């Protein structure tokens, strides 16, 4: 809990940068829209506006700043727009609907977690090596002292494996499981991109990109981030619980 305040500060700073960046990033689009709506924009010609950067155009038209946050198809949506889009596509849609992000999330997640579909093979491959390397490192982690102690107990190699080396590898296993699960999710999302998949986070991002719907891309991006966070958090919880049960301190 000691780090709650610093973490909130850093997250707040990132959000602040984002909110501030929305105005210059969207200013050209906002100015075009405002002119169509009959407002006064200070270089009159759209062509002249291209010569200005987002920041200097903002300084010339400070009265348009508020409008940059409510564009339909922004270059950079503001945080509240992303939240609203996610709320609309997750909570207000039927879960089985094609428009529901929960449905697309389920498609990606099932590819991440199980191992039968082609996408799942990529996910499985990506999480395979981190776990192998971590487990081997963990199985070799007991030092000479501990191995010697078992030898003085006249323990067989099998007993040494079950009672010392396998338990000793558990912290390493969890560390690599957390790396593996996020790699798997990335793999599943990437695998959906070039294959013309119709459902899943990756397909959603591609659809938003190709049909000029930035909000769809952004919502899919954040939903994927939340999914990754939930998966890593779940393994973190499992790690702490297991290590406490085994009498080891969580790393």
């Amino acid at each position, binding site marked *: 809990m000691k*780090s709650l305040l*610093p*973490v*909130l500060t850093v997250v707040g700073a990132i959000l602040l940068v984002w909110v501030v960046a929305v105005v210059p990033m969207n200013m050209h689009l906002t100015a075009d829209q405002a002119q169509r709506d009959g407002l006064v924009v200070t270089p009159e010609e759209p062509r002249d506006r291209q010569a200005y950067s987002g920041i200097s155009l903002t300084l010339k038209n400070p009265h348009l700043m508020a409008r940059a946050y409510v564009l339909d198809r922004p*270059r950079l949506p503001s945080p509240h727009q992303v939240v609203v889009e996610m709320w609309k596509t997750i909570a207000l849609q039927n879960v089985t609907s094609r428009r529901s992000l929960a449905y697309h999330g389920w498609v990606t997640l099932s590819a991440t977690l199980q191992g039968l579909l082609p996408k799942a093979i990529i996910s499985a491959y990506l999480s395979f090596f981190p776990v192998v390397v971590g487990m081997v490192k963990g199985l070799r982690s007991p030092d000479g002292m501990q191995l010697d102690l078992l030898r003085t107990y006249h323990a067989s190699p099998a007993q040494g494996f079950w009672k010392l080396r396998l338990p000793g590898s558990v912290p390493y296993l969890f560390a690599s499981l957390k790396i593996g699960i996020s790699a798997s999710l*990335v793999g599943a999302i990437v695998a959906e991109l070039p294959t013309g998949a119709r459902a899943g986070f*990756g397909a959603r991002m591609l659809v938003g*990109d190709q049909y000029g719907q930035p909000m769809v891309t952004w919502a899919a991006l954040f939903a994927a981030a939340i999914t990754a*966070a939930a998966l890593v958090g779940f393994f973190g919880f499992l790690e702490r619980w297991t290590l406490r049960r085994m009498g080891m301190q969580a790393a």
Partner: protein
Amino acid sequence: MTGTAIIGALTVWGAGWFINTRLAASAAAQGRLVRLLIPAIFGLTLLIIWELLVRLLEVSPVILPTPTAIASRFAEELPTLWVDFEQTIIKGAMTGYIIGMFSAFVVAIIADRSVFLTRGILPVGGFMAALPIVGTAPIFVKWLGSDWESKAAVVAVMVFFPILVNTVAGLRDTTSMQRDLMRTYGANYWATLFKLRLPAAMPFIFNGLKIATTLALIGAIVAEFFGSPTVGMGFRISTSVGQLALDMVWAEIVVAAIAGSAFYGVMTWIERWMTFWHPSQRN
């Protein structure tokens, strides 16, 4: 046919195994040559089995081309592959990697001046490093156009967080004893940073840099799926799949694998050269 294929594959596997166990048990096993030979024989065995199974089972080249087909395609298309390599790896991945690396160093050193910031950045950065940042590729392509600049931006964001987290963690890795010693020498902040804390952080920093090498290649290739000029490894992969030229796809995969291993190897080599004093590098 299936029977001969399986028997043939098992025979090759057995032969490779036999040679390798003999080599590993022989007196020369500690020699440099044999230690390189053993993984080489293992790889060769896999390739021969691949070739054998694909030929005998008459697998369509659209499903899986033979290693020899891939190798001949590789040799034929060397100029194309080189242009793609330049576009994706040199311009996209390397530029992004260097930008991401230096911005991570700068942010880490700034954050390191305050305990409060360090405590905030470590968990947030660790969390961000686990997120599927490749997803930002379509956004960056829209912002920066489809040439290599957008790929470099995706790569920079992807490599930023692992390097940042590792650098911040590494800068905290000095004991109070060591810092006190520097203080008794009358060293100021910068002298302590360059002579004690940065060298001590090097093993951590290289850990992050090595993780980031693979991320850089993934980012540069995947970002090309969202729009690219008519050159580049990601572009070539997606168009060759469309033409069912799977041997070309595999040739690009070979390039990516060689580039990735070389990049990682160079980083490991620099690490060994710079952190020769660390226990993990001593023999």
